[in-house]
């Protein structure tokens, strides 16, 4: 069990600056997820922790040891790869035992640990098989098993579920979460899938272009995104962004653009005062828009024309046009709106977000 510290971590390849000034404190027993689009530096960061990439500058420590110059085998970590990386010429048992054999564990201990891990993962019957005789989900279990038999200080996961089909991915996600609660080992998990990040992480790091954008608990990222990128990345369908002008009228601030004129919610008023007369980006999540009813205050309502209706069973997604903007609303499955019809929408006032047009930071 150990904490992981990264201080001013940088990685430069010849021309590319892949990881920029990353500072991160992963607490003991924490499940930390690094998420971001491809090329954002999340995998490189993980590989530096593993010792598979040289560190250009900065410092990584695991527990109370600085590991910068330690080879991977001496860092007391275990890693699960996207393509499973099972040794094809060894049986499942030998795959799982390999790390222990390399560390010269007594045979009895190896046997016990492999059996225990196999039991936890439900793969006892597969121990004598070769990897090529296994399905994708089984291979993934073996790869996880190979990591847990070692009882390492830190687990590293590099997009472990990306090669599985959608249904299996959901199932394995739950299993990984259960496993983490059982083993209570620090884990760093890299993914490009924000749903995985939200469901698995105790905390989530959102990265882009090598920079950390925001670190926080999943609901914190969802509720209070630090900038426009995080706001758009977390949540599906992603947040609607509309560029609006802040106008002062009738003793209140209004957000105006073609087809929309809504009052700036009271919680934002004081912060938006400096932007009076300027453009800002307003963000509203699809789930914070609903068909207006009589009880909704008129100053939070606007009209939109339905472009596309996507019934998903449990909900309906409406693609709508407002002036020059396209927005998405998530509404109840009982809604009977039709294409090309005009409909009146209301937004939940305290769930609106505002971002600076230039810096894209949350206001």
């Amino acid at each position, binding site marked *: 069990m150990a904490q992981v510290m990264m201080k001013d971590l940088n990685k430069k390849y010849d021309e590319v600056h892949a990881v920029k000034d990353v500072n991160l404190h992963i607490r003991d027993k924490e499940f930390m997820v690094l998420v971001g689009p491809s090329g954002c530096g999340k995998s490189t960061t993980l590989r530096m922790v593993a010792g598979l990439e040289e560190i250009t500058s900065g410092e990584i420590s695991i527990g109370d040891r600085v590991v910068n110059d330690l080879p991977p*085998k001496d860092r007391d*970590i*275990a*890693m699960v*790869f996207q393509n*499973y990386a099972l040794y094809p010429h060894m049986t499942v048992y030998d795959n799982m035992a*390999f790390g222990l054999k*390399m560390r010269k564990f007594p045979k009895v201990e190896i046997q016990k640990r492999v059996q225990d891990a196999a039991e936890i993962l439900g793969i006892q019957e597969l121990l004598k098989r070769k990897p*090529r005789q296994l399905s994708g989900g089984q291979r993934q279990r073996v790869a996880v098993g190979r990591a847990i038999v070692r009882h390492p200080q830190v687990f590293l996961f590099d997009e472990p579920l990306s090669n599985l089909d959608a249904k299996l991915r959901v199932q394995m996600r739950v299993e990984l979460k259960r496993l983490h609660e059982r083993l209570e080992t620090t884990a760093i998990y890299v993914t490009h899938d924000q749903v995985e990040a939200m469901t698995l992480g105790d905390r989530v790091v959102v990265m882009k272009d090598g920079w950390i954008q925001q670190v926080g608990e999943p609901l914190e990222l969802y509720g209070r995104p630090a900038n426009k990128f995080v706001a758009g990345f977390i949540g599906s369908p992603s947040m609607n962004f509309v560029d609006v002008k802040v106008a002062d009228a009738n003793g209140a601030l209004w957000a105006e653009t073609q087809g929309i004129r809504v009052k700036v919610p009271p919680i934002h008023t004081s912060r938006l005062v400096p932007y009076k007369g300027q453009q800002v980006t307003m963000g509203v999540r699809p789930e914070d828009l609903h068909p207006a009813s009589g009880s909704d205050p008129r100053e939070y309502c606007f009209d939109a024309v339905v472009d596309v209706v996507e019934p998903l069973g449990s909900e309906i997604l409406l693609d709508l046009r407002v002036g020059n903007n396209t927005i998405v609303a998530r509404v109840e499955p009982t809604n009977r709106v039709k294409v090309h019809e005009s409909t009146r929408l209301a937004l939940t006032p305290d769930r609106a977000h505002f971002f600076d047009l230039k810096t894209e930071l949350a206001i």
Partner: protein
Amino acid sequence: MVIERKWKTWVYFYIPLTVFVVGTLFPFYWMLITAIRPDAELYRSWRAATNTPFWTLQPTLEHFRDLMAKTTFPHWLWNTLFIAVVSTAISLFCGLLAGYALARLRFPMAGTLGTSIFVTYLVPPTLLFIPLANIIRTFQVGDTPWALILTYPTFLIPFCTWLLMGYFKTIPKELEECARIDGATRFGAMVRIIFPIAVPGILSAGIFAFTLSWNEFIYALVFLSSPEKKTVPVGVVSELIRGDIYFWGQLMAGALLGSIPVALVYSFFVEYYVTGLTGSVKG
């Protein structure tokens, strides 16, 4: 599967295949039939009424007996085997390490080095034997097996390196990374994980190197001169053609015996060989 008309299968498949198989195997058949044909039949006129060019009525092992007793053929066989095995071993060892380094390690000039190794493979032996002869003389290993054991790797190592480099590149590098996290050093991961997986590639490189050195002619012809030190391909043509007399029976018997080991090696490892050249590893 698409069902085609029968005549099409015949025209496009069976007939060409038959022609090809017959064309390929006929020289071997000719070799065999000549090797067991008695001299009386061999030197009979083509127009003789009793001439039977494609079979023989009195098969004999006389030529094989003569080959073993009257020439130094057993020596040639042993020389060829010894030289082929040792030079293959040297080339495989160097090719494994070089191929691994070029496929996996990041170092300056890696690409240039890889290409230049390949270019050396393209230099024809007919050009190279002149400078090599000079080197052989300087090291005073002329007319010994070492003349060939040391020169064959000049074309075998580039070949093995390239074949193995290509094979190593098909092996996912995560396997190695995983092994290194699991507790192996880079060298340990290479030996315990990569080499066992690369067995098909290593085998096909080995077979190729073995047959190339087994059949090699020009260096063997130039660097060896004593009859008992020659290899099979050189010995057969230089010792069994005396003046303008061709000892056809012994020649063919020698050629037949000389090709058997290669044929055996191929047939044992043919499956590995195919996967080795097409390269397929799944994690």
